[in-house]
């Protein structure tokens, strides 16, 4: 007989006789791979779509010129168009405009309008040319026409020939829908107008958002870029397409990190599940392997056999997982619709793209985890001396051998160190590594911890009289914690990550709630739908509002977008009255603040958000230079405030300082504090009666708070779903391990039945074992999860989102989850134990070994 056919016999025999375990292992691999793969698919699909949507706006351009401010003077356009080396200079004015009759409190509720010169755009982004009615080509140049993408038409419920009313500052503008943008990306809400019409209609005369450049053939891009950057000076940014992709990547980074976090949960849970089922299946057969060794199978042959088995299982499970993952991703994208990162590109529907490389990668990951899960115990089995291994109960020693505490302790120490290290490429890579190490270390320590805890418990209970069941349970947990701990590995991983996410999300939510209270102190906020760079309220309107009756206090805000780094999304500049004596009264400051009395004289103070510190290295007390208005100015960083609204950075300054620097007296937002006794509705009604009342966006701060929290909850809803899936997988793992162990312990149960234990007692024993172990796992998982949440809150979040938050423990929620876990794990153990009381165990005592 060849060893190959021996392998085959063994494998088939094993699979035949233990098809449940094999099935569970397969499912474990499949689910682990599926979760990670589906998240990857969703992630890349969304990213590709955003990237493509963003690219479709700039077409075939080689380079793009932007200003540090969102808008700049059009005089740059003829200058650029005349430069040698530039084949086409395509001026673009881009505005997000509020549509009459549509809510516009969020950016994704606005209509993105691109103002183009069709003759230039035709050479760079022909897809943006509107398709007018036949014979009405001049509509493309008209001052009152707009072209809408199919998605925008659907969203706004208009068709060719209809009128569309949009807000332009305090006025409304009537536009005729002259046709469609038939080549816009599916789902992309977009409108195109003639650039001249747009400058006029939206009061943006002389302003451009960007100029796209196509270079002459043969022009060296790098040297041209160097030259032009020099020529343009510091006010402008010259970016290549690659830079723009980076910018898009930066924009959607937070969203992707959230998903990556979930992929981590999935992968970890899956890995532990696979590992535990594989390891248990090998341990269960330790005696069989020893026998094979006795019969003359070499170590290498044995290892090869275990590896082959793992290879089969891993390959089959991974293929299943890939298909499952693909299916999940497709369904998820259909269900989630535009909910993914929709604030960047409203309505865009990502499509799943099958990338063979990624599929191979995830296949490989699944295979590797399966192999690793089998190889460690297989090595042990192969290298064990066969004689002792033949003896019953020897599997126990295997597990004990692994639980040497040092690797685990080293993992934990490394985790601690990694939390102290800075981000890599602005991603909290090491934070995630620390989380992984914490999990690995924690789970590796689990057996030791279990043994220690239960021997302590046994010691304590020693004096008391104990029944047979409790003696058995405690003895097993004290003396054979290893196998039990393996079973718990999966659930520990998923539960601790769930706890971590719960603490993080709740801390975040509480912090946001608190923050909203601080940043929305007024009763009412009145805005005009912003269009471009203009503050909608001029002095005249400001006066009208300030003089309206019913208000104790009226504050004006001026908001503007600034580009400080072309590869990053814009930062926000907020100019507003800030309390001179105590800025803390106005801003949600952290402790890092210069007191107003020690501010240096003659230099304008600014208060920056945490993101500015991380992204632009602004430090309190430092002098920084950036453009406000048309020129560069020097400022001193006077403090740092928390900002959960603008992760790309924001700067606040006194409105008076801003107005002095720029001469721009317009404002975007008015904060209003009501007189005591004034009815909110009356006040709102009064505002509506103003001559420009209909263009006003009036929001109650209470509504804004509620809305913000609603958006928050919605964006984390996916998290909850995936967490639940992770826990279910964990429970499945517990079930699988318990049932595997129950089978392995058939002889033990047989003997116990012989010596007079009833079925009930055995079930109670199993449930108690499962319950106690789970309880301990929960406690341990909680500690682990809490530690992870600290890493999430104090390392991962600040590094990726650039904000800090206060720790908050949602006790009642955690308790109920813990209880649910306890009950379901005990039930799972119990269900797995049904085999333990079947008639087969009686015969098991006859089996030798």
């Amino acid at each position: 007989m060849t060893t190959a056919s021996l392998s085959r016999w063994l494998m088939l025999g094993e699979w035949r006789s233990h098809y449940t375990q094999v099935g569970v292992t397969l499912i474990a691999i499949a689910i682990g791979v599926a979760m990670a793969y589906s998240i990857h698919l969703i992630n890349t699909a969304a990213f590709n779509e955003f990237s493509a949507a963003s690219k479709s706006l700039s077409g075939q351009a080689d380079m793009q010129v932007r200003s540090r401010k969102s808008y700049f003077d059009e005089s740059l356009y003829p200058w650029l168009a005349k430069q040698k080396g530039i084949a086409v200079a395509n001026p673009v004015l881009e505005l997000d405009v509020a549509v009459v009759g549509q809510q516009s409190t969020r950016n994704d509720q606005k209509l993105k309008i691109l103002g183009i010169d069709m003759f230039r755009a035709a050479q760079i982004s022909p897809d943006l040319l509107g398709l007018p009615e036949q014979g009405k080509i001049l509509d493309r140049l008209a001052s009152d026409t707009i072209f809408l993408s199919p998605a925008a038409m659907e969203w706004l419920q208009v068709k060719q020939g209809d009128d569309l009313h949009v807000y332009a500052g305090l006025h409304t503008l009537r536009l005729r829908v002259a046709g469609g943008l038939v080549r816009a990306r599916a789902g992309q809400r977009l409108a195109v107008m003639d650039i001249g019409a747009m400058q006029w209609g939206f009061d943006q005369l002389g302003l451009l958002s960007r100029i796209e450049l196509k270079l002459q053939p043969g022009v060296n891009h790098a040297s041209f870029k160097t030259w032009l950057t020099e020529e343009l000076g510091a006010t402008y940014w010259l970016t290549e397409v690659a830079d723009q992709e980076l910018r898009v990547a930066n924009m959607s980074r937070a969203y992707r990190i959230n998903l990556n976090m979930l992929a981590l949960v999935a992968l970890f849970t899956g890995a532990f599940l696979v590992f535990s089922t594989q390891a248990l299946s090998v341990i269960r057969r330790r005696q069989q392997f020893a026998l094979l060794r006795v019969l003359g199978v070499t170590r290498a042959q044995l290892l090869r056999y275990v590896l082959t088995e793992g290879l089969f299982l891993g390959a089959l499970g991974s293929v299943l997982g890939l298909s499952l993952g693909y299916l999940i991703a497709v369904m998820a994208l259909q269900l989630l619709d535009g909910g993914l990162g929709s604030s960047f590109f409203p309505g865009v529907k990502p499509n799943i793209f099958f990338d063979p490389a990624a599929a191979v990668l995830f296949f490989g990951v699944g295979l590797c985890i399966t192999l690793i899960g089998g190889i460690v115990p297989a090595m042990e089995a192969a290298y064990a001396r066969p004689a002792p291994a033949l003896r019953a109960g020897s599997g126990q020693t295997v597990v004990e051998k692994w639980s040497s505490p040092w690797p685990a302790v080293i993992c934990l120490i490394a985790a601690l160190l990694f939390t102290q290290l800075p981000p890599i490429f602005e991603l909290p890579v090491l934070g995630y590594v620390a989380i992984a190490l914490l999990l690995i270390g924690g789970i590796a320590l689990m057996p030791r911890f279990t043994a220690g805890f239960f021997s302590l418990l046994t010691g304590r209970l020693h004096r008391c009289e104990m029944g047979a069941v409790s003696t058995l349970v405690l003895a097993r947990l004290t003396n054979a914690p290893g196998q039990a701990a393996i079973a718990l590995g999966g659930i520990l991983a998923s539960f601790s990550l769930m706890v971590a996410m719960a603490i993080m999300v709740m801390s975040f939510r509480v912090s946001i709630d608190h923050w909203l209270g601080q940043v929305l102190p007024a009763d009412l906020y009145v805005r005009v739908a912003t269009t471009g760079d203009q503050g909608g309220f001029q002095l005249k309107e400001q006066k009208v509002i300030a003089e309206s009756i019913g208000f104790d206090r009226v504050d004006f805000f001026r908001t503007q977008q600034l580009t400080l780094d072309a590869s990053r999304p814009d930062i926000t500049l907020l100019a507003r009255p800030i309390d001179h004596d105590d800025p803390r009264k106005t801003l949600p400051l952290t402790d890092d603040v210069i007191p107003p009395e020690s501010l240096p004289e003659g230099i304008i103070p600014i208060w920056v958000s945490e993101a500015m510190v991380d992204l632009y290295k602004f430090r309190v007390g430092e002098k920084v230079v950036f453009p406000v208005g048309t020129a560069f100015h020097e400022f001193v960083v006077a403090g740092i405030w928390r900002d959960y609204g603008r992760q790309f950075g924001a700067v606040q300054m006194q409105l008076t300082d801003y107005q002095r620097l720029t001469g721009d007296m317009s404002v975007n937002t008015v904060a209003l504090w009501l007189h005591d006794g004034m009815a909110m509705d009356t006040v709102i009604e009064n505002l509506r009666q103003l001559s420009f009342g209909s263009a006003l966006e009036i929001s109650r701060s209470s509504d804004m708070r509620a809305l913000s929290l609603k958006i928050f909850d919605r964006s984390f809803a996916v998290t909850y779903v995936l967490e639940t899936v992770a826990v279910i997988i964990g429970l499945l793992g517990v079930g699988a391990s318990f049932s595997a162990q129950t089978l392995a312990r058939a002889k033990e149960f047989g003997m116990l039945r012989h010596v007079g234990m009833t079925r009930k007692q055995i079930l109670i024993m199993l449930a108690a074992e499962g319950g106690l172990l789970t309880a301990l796992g929960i406690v341990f998982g909680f500690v682990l999860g809490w530690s992870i949440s600290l890493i999430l809150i104090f390392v991962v979040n600040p590094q990726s989102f650039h904000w800090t938050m206060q720790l908050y423990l949602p006790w009642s929620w955690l308790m109920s989850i813990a209880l649910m876990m306890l009950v379901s794990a005990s039930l799972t153990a119990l269900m797995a134990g049904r085999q333990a009381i079947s008639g087969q165990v009686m015969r098991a005592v006859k089996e030798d070994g």
Partner: protein
Amino acid sequence: MKIMQKIGKLRYAKFLLAWLLMAAFLSIETLADEPVSRLKPVVPDHHLSFPADYGAHHDFRIEWWYITGWLDTDDDKPLGFQVTFFRYATDQNHDNPSHFAAKYLIIAHVALSDPATGKLMHHEKTLREGFDLAYARSGNTDVKLDDWYLVRDDQGHYQVEMQTDEFGLKLSLAPTQAVMLQGDKGFSRKGPKPEQASYYYSEPHLRVSGIVSRNNKPVTVNGSAWLDHEWSTAYLDSDADGWDWVGANLDDGSALMAFQIRGKNGGKVWAYAALRNPTGEVRFFSPDQVEFTPLRTWKSPHTEAVYPVAMHIRTEDIEWRLSPFLDDQELDSRQSTGAVYWEGAVTLTRNQQPAGRGYLELTGYVSPLTL
């Protein structure tokens, strides 16, 4: 305004090449419904005044400067060339203070007929007037579109430069004869109705010297050219289907211009010819004295259109035969402006005797494209 055609179905917006372009590119079917236009009509008994009329006339809808000619390279290889600058008033956006407001468009075509390539090389560009990037100035000929320009100096010399990725030309054109006013002292009728007309003058026998480059290889060239400058607001007759036009510098110093507007039924809607002899004496031919007869047709492999590339023209007692320099001189710009026409260098015989070289334009042989 009388000149505005109150006819609903105007398939062609205008008249001669420029109008055809507009027809394809900016078909203005609804303009007939617009009550008032700021644009001026073309009226008889208007005296052209130079040098002002060399420049642009913004009060008229359409205007073009059009130069065709034959060139000889220094190794005696003949080439044909065509340069056209259009100015088009959108008749829109006059209130818009934006510098981008599209009030006028500048369109330019350049083409080179080179027997070495066997076909016409051509390129076209369009821009809105503004930012000094594209303009047609008044006062004297001064038209620009990005780096393409045509400018006339006080001595009457023209400079033109148009470079494309494939080819380019940079030419100086010097007048050798006086300006030739077409029609009735520059009032040139285009149809049976008096308002179907344009202001039109030509400059035949311009002496050309300069550089033509093909695939970045420049060669010096010399030759002679014909310039047309025409402006109008009127539309082509509703019955018009296209036109055939020829302008030729004859070897003896004479200049011939003839055109016919073809009707939809294949007949002749209008025709005109003028022959100026070297002494400056002009002989005008009335529509019934001018007759175009196709001699040979060529089917375009690009558009399937069939063009009468060899043409017999009779102007009263004179027989002209036109033979194409190349068959494939079709200008197919469906990818950009959408116009398709045949614009080619031809040699002429007068009563069977070799007489000179000129340019033949054949339009309306492809059904207009719907964009």
